[in-house]
């Protein structure tokens, strides 16, 4: 049994799950991952099992996942972690404008920590993420203490100020703010910083670099890659 793989899958699912995810979507994602990573007879047997899981209660589902043996190499797991982390970060930043910047990523940061923990038994995955982002000048969202009145008081004023400022933006300016958020940059970013950050995301998410991942994960990564590309194209316009 490889519990770490099962944990990774569950965590990947949780990390991808900002809102409600239908059982059907989850099952399809798992089934296509299996088809890509196992010999045909094994994949067919596991897929049949997965399809039965689609009608299970949540606790039975996790039991079933934990009992599956998934033969992924550590390199594949690392690649999957990196792409999951990169995609989660782009998603998180794209959602930043719908709420306080340091609030939304909190659950995601804990999930990422769990992913890193499950992957390495230490902090290698998270350290890799933090270091790569630091080198590229990308802001890493920190986990806020949502249980603390003092923390909420410390962020409430800046949030109100941000909302007031955003109300004054024109549509074009608002689009620029969103595009910069997708890249992880502040409003005063220079064109040089935009290019440097864009290259960072291209290295992480370019379809050529994700070939060893399951097809569905590649599809999600490609969508994120195009989102980053679109943002950069709009930002380059005079």
């Amino acid at each position, binding site marked *: 049994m490889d519990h770490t793989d099962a944990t990774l899958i569950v965590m990947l699912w949780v990390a991808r799950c900002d809102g409600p995810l239908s*059982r059907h979507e989850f099952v399809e994602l798992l089934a296509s991952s299996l088809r890509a990573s196992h010999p045909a007879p094994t994949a067919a047997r596991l897929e049949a099992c997965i399809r039965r899981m689609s009608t299970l209660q949540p606790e039975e589902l996790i039991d079933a996942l934990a009992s599956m043996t998934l033969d992924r190499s550590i390199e594949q797991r690392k690649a999957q972690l990196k792409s999951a982390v990169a995609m989660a970060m782009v998603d998180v930043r794209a959602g930043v404008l719908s709420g306080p910047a340091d609030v939304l990523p909190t659950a995601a940061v804990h999930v990422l920590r769990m992913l890193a923990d499950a992957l390495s038994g230490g902090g290698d995955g998270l350290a890799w993420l933090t270091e790569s982002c630091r080198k590229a000048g990308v802001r890493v969202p920190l986990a806020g203490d949502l249980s603390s009145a003092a923390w909420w008081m410390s962020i409430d004023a800046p949030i109100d100020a941000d909302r007031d400022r955003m109300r004054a933006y024109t549509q074009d300016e608002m689009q620029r703010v969103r595009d910069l958020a997708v890249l992880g940059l502040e409003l005063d970013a220079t064109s040089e910083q935009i290019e440097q950050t864009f290259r960072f995301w291209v290295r992480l998410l370019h379809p050529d670099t994700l070939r060893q991942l399951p097809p569905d994960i590649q599809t999600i990564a490609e969508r994120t890659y195009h989102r980053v590309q679109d943002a950069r194209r709009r930002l380059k316009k005079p």
Partner: protein
Amino acid sequence: MKDLYGRLGSRGPKDQAPVERALREQSGDRQDLLDAAFVLSDPFRKQQYDDCWKTLVLVAMIRHRFGMTQTPLWCTQSAGDFAVVPWSPGLAAQCLPFDAEAPRLQKSSLDGGAGPMLPRA
């Protein structure tokens, strides 16, 4: 992040009575009561806190189930209150983001064979 529900004797977001009682009677740690009053009485803050609480509890339960409770990265950091959360099916059902409940199946149909998909008696 603190487990405000646990500290005030509640089992989670759906179990509000112990939280309300603790706040009314001011029973418990003063700092916890202050934080709970500030965070859980505001709908926006409560929603954000509850979402994160569910994630942390789910992660903690999965870790507990897989015997991963001793790794320092998780236990010594800000999620200390969630270091050991024993598996509980009821709690898991609260925390998983499934969109709908599904009919129960026989456990035997999980082995990957061609067993029938029968509803549990």
